[in-house]
């Protein structure tokens, strides 16, 4: 397996087009998912969260729950909150796992 640090320094100019090179400015959105300071663990944590959220869609425990919360059936409220959780997950993915290399590949780097 290649180590990213090994590649970055000696091949700066060439590697730039291959998305490993040092950046002189922040990529679009201001966060570089490939920078050395990237919380690598955070990205993987998000993928685990993604799997957990997938499982949580199957709320069998509320299947026959007739309780109303402010008029909203609990089974519906749960899934409204599920949408909010999905949004939070997407914010995390956009912040910490954004495929910044795509801008470079398409020749549209800022």
């Amino acid at each position: 397996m290649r180590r990213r640090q090994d590649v970055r320094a000696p091949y700066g100019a060439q590697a730039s087009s291959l998305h490993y090179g040092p950046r002189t400015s922040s990529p679009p959105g201001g966060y570089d998912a490939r920078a050395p300071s990237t919380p690598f663990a955070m990205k993987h944590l998000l993928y685990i969260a993604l799997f957990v959220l997938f499982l949580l869609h199957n709320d069998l425990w509320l299947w026959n729950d007739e309780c109303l919360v402010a008029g909203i059936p609990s089974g519906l409220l749960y899934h409204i909150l599920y949408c909010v959780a999905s949004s939070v997950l997407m914010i995390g993915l956009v912040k910490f796992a954004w495929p910044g290399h795509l801008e470079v590949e398409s020749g549209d780097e800022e």
Partner: protein
Amino acid sequence: MILAVISIYVLLVLLIGVFSHKLFRGTGEDYFLATRSIGPFVLFMSLFGTHMTAFSILGASGEAYHEGIGVFALLASSSAFVVPLVFFFVGTRLWSIGKKFGYLTQIQYFRERWDSDALGLLLFVVLNLLLIPYLLIGLMGGGITLNQITGGRIPEWVGGLLVIAVTSTYVIYGGMRGTAWVNTFQTIIFMVCGGLAFVVISDNMGGFQNAMQSIALEHPDLLIRGDHIRPLQMLTSMFIPLSVGMFPHLFNHWLTAKRASAFRQTLMFYPLAIAVVWVPSVLLGVMGTLNFPGLQGPAANSILIRMIEMHANKVLAGILAAGVISSVMNSLDSQSLAIGSMFTQDIVRHYGFHDRMSEKQQVLYGRIFVLLILTGTYILSLFSGRSIFRLGIWSFTGFAGLFPVVVAALFWKRSTKAGAFACISTVAILWLYFFVQAGKSETYTIGGTGIMPVAIITVASAVVMIVVSLFTTAPESPVLYKFFPESSPEKTGAISGIGEGRV
């Protein structure tokens, strides 16, 4: 009065389409993709508006009328989870490839990715056939809305015709830029109108909580999933939103993005936007059982409009009906544009007819093809007695079944054109089989188990793609290097000095 409000709305839509034409640059890329210049806000609104159809407004409320609140879990929250992920992992990459190689349609990409004209032709046929039920629900939705809201003064066939006429006008005149702008306007209208309809109707029914208490007494089964939905149905419902990865009209919208970062807002807010649209639709469908009990089958398609007509004053009813029509036209326009784009690029230009005809003639034939498809669909809509929800589900099933095609194209270098052929053929055969079976039983699960056909079709097409690819000759290097440049000898050598071209 209702008709006057709807007429003003239609006029506004046409004006936006006409105004967008002023910026037309006279090129194919501008007509079909607005020169890839769309920023984050319009991208979000046009993608979301295109995705939300009569299915989400009329279909969801009609299905909730019969099956209760479980409809939200089945299709809305599953979409809130899956759709942004597909945009994130697939949409952004297709945007990048589309921009790099100047693609205007997804068929152009798949054809070059597997170096096969026949594959492009097969996809052209399959994608267009799968779009027909999707177009159908738009036409039915437009007809039902205008018929119901005018107390039957406008027959459904006139309503459907009017929707086609308005949509075709601004699509033909404004192209993608006009479509994106109109979509943005329409998305704002139907999101605001959905909330407004919910507030007004709830208030008129003595308050939301009172209405729900009444349902708890009269139809408690609609406030739980109970026997309406099976656990395996919930699990396999996650496959349906995968369809967005293969919608030709969403592919076109992805390509309009100015840069990859324009996707960010869309990804983050998409799940919330889905909830904003679906919650009122589902709740109003359930509340409709109090005012209009006993509707059978497809008759519930119009429950939302019936509720609006009953509880809102004429002006408001006109505005709310315009909101529903917005959701209908929002998708119909992009689908029409995608069909025209595929015909012009993948048939006329690709097969060399462009040598024999001018640019104007090519566009003309593209438009004629769109009108032919719309006319055929319109005729079908006059005889279709099916539920909007069921028709939508079958269209999504086919597109979701094709999802392994795009995943293999983007992420699996070893995938072959034989694998892609087998995968698409598997989808076509299984889709037809399950569709005919469902026609006999009127259900969308296999043998009453709760397992949706979409799960079987998608898994089967993925397995076939893998097995056939592994048993056929690996793709040629030049094609691979084009789409996976990191595996080309120069690139791998430049970095590590060691050829790491994994295939």
